[in-house]
């Protein structure tokens, strides 16, 4: 584990999370993330070799349902909620081109 979270770490994570951050937020998050991760050191130190992870208290596996045609959500209703649409599709700003 890293000893501390540097401002560069915070900027890297913010890029991964697609979150624009201000310099003040970088400073703030560096300290706060370090504090929470510091609190987690007791969990890191536990011996869990051979312990399986939990995601559900009951053994549900490969849940399937009958393949029956049913009405889905209304396309027009969905598109009405979008910030930008064109010809029945979502419209977004330029994707290709010079990298920012």
């Amino acid at each position, binding site marked *: *584990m890293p000893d501390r*979270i540097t401002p560069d*770490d*915070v900027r890297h*994570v*913010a890029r*991964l*999370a*697609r*979150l*624009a*951050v201000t310099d003040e*937020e970088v400073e703030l*998050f560096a300290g*706060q*993330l370090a*504090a*929470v*991760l510091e*609190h*987690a050191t*007791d*969990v*890191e130190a*536990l011996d*869990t070799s051979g*312990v*399986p*992870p*939990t*995601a*559900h*208290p*009951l053994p*549900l596996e490969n*849940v399937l*349902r009958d393949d029956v045609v049913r009405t889905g*959500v*209304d396309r027009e*209703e*969905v598109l009405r*909620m*979008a*910030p*930008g649409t064109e010809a029945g599709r*979502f419209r*977004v*700003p*330029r*994707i290709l*081109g010079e990298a*920012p």
Partner: protein
Amino acid sequence: MRTAVDIAEAVRTGARSAVDVIDEHLAEVDRREPEIHAFNLVLADEARRAAADLDRRVAAGESVGRLAGVPLALKDNLCTRGLPTTCSSRILDGWCPPYDATVVERLRAAGAVFVGKTNLDEFAMGSSTENSAFGPTRNPLDITRVPGGSSGGSAAAVAAGFAPLALGSDTGGSIRQPAAFCGVVGVKPTYGAVSRYGLIAFASSLDQIGPFSATVADSALLLEVIAGHDPLDSTSIQSPAPSLTEAVEVGVEGLRIGIIRELMDGIDADVAARVREAADVLAAAGAKVEEVSVAATIYGLSAYYLIAPAEASSNLSRYDGVRYGLRVDAPDITTMYEQTRAAGFGPEVKRRIMLGTYALSAGYYDAYYGQAQRVRTLITRDFDSAYEHFDALLSPTAPTTAFAFGAKTENPLAMYLSDVCTIPSNLAGHPAMSVPFGTGDDGLPVGVQVLAPALGETVMFRVAGALEAAATAATVMA
């Protein structure tokens, strides 16, 4: 005649009109909502129309549901078709879901009348509703105190008499802690007992929808209506929903109940005293009560603050300005994503996205998320050992009574500690509920938490019913 059980009976038999019932509750909303701010949206017209329709059906001799005419408040992270659903976040600005949550459909079919959508900490991340983009909710019992969170609006709505029933969601205590702070009953069912379809996801392996009410019997009734298998939620339990309403008055004769030693540590003395008194009344009612160790619960908070942010960072990646909600225009798509998310999310949501993204990033996944998921198993095993000797467990719901606004906003860790007693049940997937039991030195309510093994709702409601009966008797004597 303000309980859901009584209202439904009166409306069903025609003894009272649903319109009269909703008008009475809306008058209460008019009177106190300006100072409480329990709601993001009050559905007065829709509620009156739904009530009038029920009255017509009763008059025509049609059968109406088990919650006929009962006013109910919905946490604003439950999807309601055509009605704004905000999660108290700017990023969902203007969005109306194109479908109803399964719980919303079931409640409507049962005749419940929706009063409004309640305020919450943004995306259910918080313990005080101070993280709402639309301003905090105030505790109806003392408006200088927080109502708890994240389902603070739902707890406040019930405590203020705006509705006898409300739904919340509980990821780490977000139903039980506000229930304790507002002096009402709050239930987190077994993971998978209630369909999460249409509940806007925070941490998918922990989230569960559950009831708020003034009485234990009302929560039992509401949970019976919303529980049960749903093919639209792949984590939904396939066994039939248990019968709970009869359990409330069965009593605790012969039950073995354990007080969790580790969760009595670091608890305010007045709160701990109420929990011991609760144990005493259960013993007096015929239960065998002892202290028990559930050692791994001490790792709950740390594990939770790796798992919940990790899952949140993944779930909240969908808010990208493309399909719904806010978009900040920019010349290229990456900048549009980054600016939209920066403008749309509040500080706590950003903090958790950052924490979760870090915990899931290359090289750290197994050390953080993987390790925390294995620690869940250790916690579940310790609970399982305890349940070999006990039918139900007891603890405080929260370490303190309702705190003042601003008391914990500067220090995220201090705020997170507010959920130390409730988090273990989410990690194990077990049911737990908060029952009001007396007050602290400040005169504000204390909640006692009743915990049970997976699918143990019936025994949990037996214990809760006995606690409520004792607490009510004590109030009558005082």
